[in-house]
């Protein structure tokens, strides 16, 4: 059984931590103001605005800050300020014993994929893959993707519809949704945070990689058996892709299509889960229905 943390009510408290990269305090202001406007209290962790080289603090500082937020009875949800790199450095130092007894929504994406996978594979606790603090800036707090985060926090069931892609493989599927950033998903293979994908709907997204590197990572998913028994596959945004001097000869979408074309389950491309503005909040560990039809893709929370 999957544990679904309690949804939030106005007046509840959201803690903001940075378990990975450095996030200047002022870049999180639009986020904190919006959360307050939604009626939540906001408690910034010690790592928000703090810096240690690339990171938002030493491993100890980042671990302590997140640990405190996980354990604090007065914190109802944890929003990660940003990703970057570093959650994997502290994941094994975290103690989830109190969190398991009093689960709360952990929100973020990219490097936060480590937390999503770890929580689901070890404790079957659902978590929220969605926009982080920087996405609220430059008027972002008004867009439908930030609104989707608000609705997800309040427990409103999502029903996302997007136009299809010519590469889509039509079909219908129901299953628990798992996934996240492709680099992190493959980095976790073989570790205690590795996710099982059998009978699941898997989603992946990526930013700033070479096309061949994406191809390579998709081969790893395939060779480690993570693609063959899916219910459905959601290919999110792959932004800022780079190519080698000798070009790869395909887009990432074409390369992925080649790898999955023999599977019978539905596959959709360019779904709005990404490092760009287009980044709907989805819940890892929750059951969804995926309908991939001609010119229409629907992901509906059950």
């Amino acid at each position, binding site marked *: 059984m999957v544990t679904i943390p309690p949804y939030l009510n106005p007046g509840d408290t959201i803690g903001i931590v940075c378990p990975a*990269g450095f996030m200047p305090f002022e870049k999180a202001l639009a986020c904190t103001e919006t959360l307050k406007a939604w009626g939540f209290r906001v408690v910034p962790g010690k790592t928000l605005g703090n810096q*240690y*080289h*690339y*990171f938002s603090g030493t491993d100890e500082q980042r671990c302590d800050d997140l640990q405190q937020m996980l354990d604090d009875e007065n914190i109802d949800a944890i929003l990660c300020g940003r990703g970057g*790199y570093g959650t*994997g*450095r502290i994941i*094994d130092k975290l103690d989830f014993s109190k969190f398991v007894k009093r689960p709360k929504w952990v929100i973020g994406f990219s490097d936060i994929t480590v937390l999503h996978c770890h929580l689901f594979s070890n404790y079957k606790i659902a978590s929220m893959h969605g926009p982080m603090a920087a996405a609220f800036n430059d008027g972002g707090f008004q867009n439908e993707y930030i609104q989707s985060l608000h609705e997800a926090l309040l427990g409103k069931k999502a029903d996302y519809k997007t136009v299809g892609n010519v590469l889509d493989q039509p079909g219908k599927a129901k299953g628990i949704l798992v996934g996240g950033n492709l*680099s992190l998903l*493959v*980095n*976790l*293979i*073989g*570790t*205690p*945070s*590795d996710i099982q994908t059998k009978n699941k709907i898997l989603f992946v997204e990526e930013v700033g990689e070479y096309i*061949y590197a994406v*191809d*390579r*990572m998709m*081969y*790893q998913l395939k*060779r*480690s*058996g*993570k693609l063959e028994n899916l219910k459905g596959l959601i290919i999110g945004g792959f932004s800022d892709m780079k190519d*080698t001097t*000798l*070009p*790869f*000869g*395909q887009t990432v979408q074409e390369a992925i299509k080649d790898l999955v074309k023999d599977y019978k389950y539905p596959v959709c491309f360019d779904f709005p889960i990404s490092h760009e503005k287009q980044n709907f909040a989805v819940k890892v560990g929750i059951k969804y229905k995926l309908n991939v039809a001609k010119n229409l893709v629907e992901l509906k929370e059950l």
Partner: protein
Amino acid sequence: MVANNSPFNTFDIRISMKRKDFLTSVIPLATISAAFPKAPELSQSLAPNKMPPYLKKGDVIGITCPSGYISMEECLPAINKMEEWGFTVITDNTVGARDFTFAGTDDERASGFQKMIDDPAINAIMLGRGGYGAIRIIDKINFRNFAKHPKWIIGFSDATVFHCHIQQKFGIPTIHSKMCNSFPLDFANADQTQIDSIGSIRQCLTGENMKYERPVNFENRFGEATGILVGGNLSVIELLDGSVSDLKTDGKILFIEDVGEYPYKIDGMLWNLKRSKKLDHLKGLIVGQFRMKPDDPGEEFGKSLWEMVMEKIAPHYPVCFDFPVGHVKENYALKCGMKHKLVVSDKGTILECVG
């Protein structure tokens, strides 16, 4: 204060002008080019039927390209040098073939490799270059004949796919070394370490005793170990996680190298090794060359390779840094899958093949 980390400076201090002695052999270097000594007796660590036969004069080396594109012209220095060693060299259709970044389509590359391992007239296989592509064909290859009649497969980087796959599935040794694209156009003016590195391929192939020495490095963790040598490119080792080719490292001496990655990426890969328990039960660890991509401005990672490694390893085994294996001129041929003795001490480091 730790010792200077530069491979050249540490080297110069200890044995200036005698770089070639780094790779010692039972035969003086001046005479080995014409010599094909009898293969040493095998230890019990490897069943004789697992052992690819060492090469004799006149034996055939086939060149094929399972990964990136390389032209025939770029392969010529390697062809000439290996013929100079007394071997016959043949190439297949993948040399000079090009499908974008690859040396032909997946089917063409798989078929080229398959024919080379199945052809009884070919005694060893030298890969054209690395790049990317081995993972796309490894599951198309049928190793049945190869398992019965093993032959040396030579390469590194992307070829780590073959080293690990063959080690895990068949326990057959392979040679981790430079490939065709690393042979200099002009040997007369090449860096001595590069010449020695290429010479070490011949030494491996002909069954000479392989012994590698390194001056003392106080970043090392001293100790002695004996075990099967496995390893290769760190990204590729991670890539194989969870697959049938996944490298098991318990009781082994592991070597790793990588190139062109950001420090944070290397850190992430090392965490993957640690968290997948590949560092817990090693006999020894050899850290090769890591020419990392500089951090982007304002994104300085702030940890050295030494720090990244030392914080993750178990306390019981010797660790050697700055070993000459990797994407550099000085990249000596190593026999993966064979028993080696590693001695890391305040006298220096010695790695010796004892299998």
